[in-house]
């Protein structure tokens, strides 16, 4: 164990600072609320800046496909900052869900066609058909693929597709006769109805997609579906953990700032142990969640045998941390945190939704323990 060097600490810090500058305008409370109240679509200008100025759309893509070829830890830094800023654009869906599915599919033609466009911010994408089963993430059973005279086509329903209405491209995991297969479906392909769904989280759009004979391009070889699944079931919870760490940290930051500024009984409220110790408890869990998440990303990058168990630890820890930190923030803010005008509830909502998405803490813990049993202690 120990000391695998500096882990790019300095580069991470630079990337973080750059992102904070770029994201600062969208982090302001008024901007966040305006976006929610007006149901604003993706901020196109910000998307462009993310792709060109900061070049983070290709952070987890190899150089030969237009990306930066950076280690996965850089993706973690980006996701944490987007979480902090409560970024509502299609980064997670495009870069993590669809982008990593494409990479895992092994379909070089599709990769060379699609990934450079994703990296350049010219193509948004998402993934349909990944759901939580009894044994972790698996292919949802709602969509079936059949081979017709004109090629493959999809039928059935996919739920909870992040940014599903807006995505230019959908990667779909579907059940075919020989098992799970992986397909690409274009936005303007016929035979699909994409319906926006509401819910708890007001800053991430989601859709239900009904396929009825939608033409679909298979991605990769016969085992591509399984390969995509194998990769995403570890990668997606780990990446979502990185985002949740950002939510968690932002919540404690906001609460600490308020505790320093707000006075009652002639003292800053942060000087009261009742407030201080609650913040410390949240902070402690956040530090641990951050720590396991970056470790999980490192293990994943090295395809270590610990990557699976650490993905469970990371998703469980970060989910709990974000949920608790959001609650602590609201408690610290008092009445003001209970108003619509303060963005606190947007963080709480994202934390609540993110906690359940791609496996609840309890589900991940169960999988962690099961893994410990299988590996003999």
């Amino acid at each position, binding site marked *: 164990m120990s000391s695998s060097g500096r882990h790019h600490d300095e580069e991470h810090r630079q990337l973080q600072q750059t992102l904070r500058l770029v994201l600062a305008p969208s982090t302001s409370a008024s901007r966040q609320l305006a976006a929610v109240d007006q149901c604003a679509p993706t901020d196109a200008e910000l998307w462009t800046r993310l792709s060109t100025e900061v070049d983070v759309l290709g952070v987890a893509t190899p150089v030969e496909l237009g990306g930066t070829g950076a280690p996965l830890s850089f993706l973690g830094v980006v996701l944490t900052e987007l979480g902090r800023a409560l970024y509502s654009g299609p980064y997670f869906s495009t870069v993590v869900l669809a982008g990593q599915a494409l990479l895992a599919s092994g379909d070089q033609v599709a990769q060379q066609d699609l990934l450079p466009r994703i990296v350049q911010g010219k193509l948004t994408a998402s993934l349909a058909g990944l759901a939580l089963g009894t044994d972790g993430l698996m292919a949802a059973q709602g969509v079936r693929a059949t081979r017709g005279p004109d090629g493959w086509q999809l039928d059935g329903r996919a*739920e*909870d597709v992040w940014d599903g209405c807006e995505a230019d491209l959908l990667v779909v995991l579907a059940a075919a006769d020989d098992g799970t297969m992986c397909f690409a479906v274009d936005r303007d392909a016929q035979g699909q109805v994409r319906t926006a*769904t*509401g*819910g*708890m*989280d007001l800053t991430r759009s*989601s859709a239900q997609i009904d396929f009825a004979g939608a033409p679909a391009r298979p991605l990769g070889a016969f085992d591509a579906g399984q390969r995509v699944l194998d990769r995403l079931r570890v990668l997606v919870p780990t990446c979502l953990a990185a985002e949740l760490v950002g939510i968690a940290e932002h919540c404690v930051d906001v609460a600490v700032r308020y505790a320093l500024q707000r*006075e*009652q*009984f*002639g*003292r800053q*409220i942060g000087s*009261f142990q*009742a*407030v201080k110790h609650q913040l410390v408890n949240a902070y402690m869990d956040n530090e641990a969640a951050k720590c396991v998440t970056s470790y999980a990303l490192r293990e994943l990058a090295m395809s270590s045998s610990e990557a699976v168990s650490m993905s469970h630890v990371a998703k469980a820890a970060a989910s709990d941390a974000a949920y608790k930190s959001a*609650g602590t923030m*609201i*408690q610290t803010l*008092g*009445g003001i*945190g*209970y*108003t*619509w*005008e*303060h963005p*606190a*509830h947007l963080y*709480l*909502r994202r934390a*609540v*939704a993110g906690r*359940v*998405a791609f496996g*609840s803490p*309890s589900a991940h813990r169960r999988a962690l323990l099961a893994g410990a049993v299988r590996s003999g202690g």
Partner: protein
Amino acid sequence: MFRDRVRAFLGEHLPADWTGIGALLPAAQDQFREEWRALMHSNGLLALTWPTQYGGAGLGPLEQLIVAEECTAVGVPQGGLNDNFGIQMLGSTLLRWGTEEQCRHYLPRILAGDDVWCQGFSEPDAGSDLAGLRTRAVASDDHWTINGQKIWTSYGHLATHIFVLSRTDPSAGKHSGISLLLCELDQPGIEVRPLKTLTGEEEFNEVFFTDARCPLDAVVGPVNGGWAVAMDLLGYERGEAVATLGTRFRRDFDRLHDLAAERGQLADPVLAERLAYSLQRVEELRCLGRQAVDGWLGGRDIGAESSLHKLFWSEWLQMTTELAMDILGSAATTASGTGLQGVSFPAAEAGSANTPSVWADYFLRARAATIYAGSSEIQRNIIGERLLGLPKEPR
């Protein structure tokens, strides 16, 4: 016997299929509430403990409790939304501290619905530290001139009048120099601005006073002696809550239990264990409520005891709505139906729909429970200092 009369009244006036006011749409709730209040009034069930000369029923706290219990049991309100402020809080306070003239003027108007009251206590910089309030009132020949800002005024947008805790002697100590003033809202010097809650409801308000006025004699109790009056007033809020909340929360538990059963989640032993704990705790809460009511009827001051009750139920409510979220899983986070109908605070109204979106809404609303009416931190201080005799923090 009195209980029988109340039951007969309820049986007579409620439809056979009545499940509770929570089953009505918000507009229908408002209408029902208004009609129901009038019906309660004409049947002598409003202001049970007020003397008859002011329009009350001239009965005691036991009868008041019986009405509260029976109304809670069938899921109807005991009056209008603002009656908690007008009848329970201000009315009781006027009867203790007010002049004969004040009682004769204000009390019948409250009952008739002519005056609808709201509360002006908290301020942006005086939340937990209520005595830190800065709204000032200055007396001149024939009126007080009020300047300042109040916040978290529930149902202020429905009110015609506000009782305002104001600093009337800035040179006095923090708890001295405060007076409780009675003030009409419909005047140029007052602006009521609704404040949306995190679920999008408009329930609270900000109230801005800019040279607002009220008559010189519109002071409850002694000028500059308003702190004691205000503490007394807050005490009248409590009796009913301890008597009825246990029942209301047990109903919430039963709904959640039904939902878990419907969705096959009782078979999940981890969720079942948490449900069992929620049940245990709500039964503890009911007992605590019964005990406090016994004490209250026996004339015991339940000030600090009500803090214990508040702390207990607010934690129960958050724990149980969090459990609801876990029972529902992604159904709760992707549900897009309507939430709780109208005002359902702190417990959901009887008859509320038992759907994921209602529970998601309830979960969010429950965030307020540990903040409003004395945060949990303040309640713990009160309990620690008054019931355990621990020393205050040095200041």
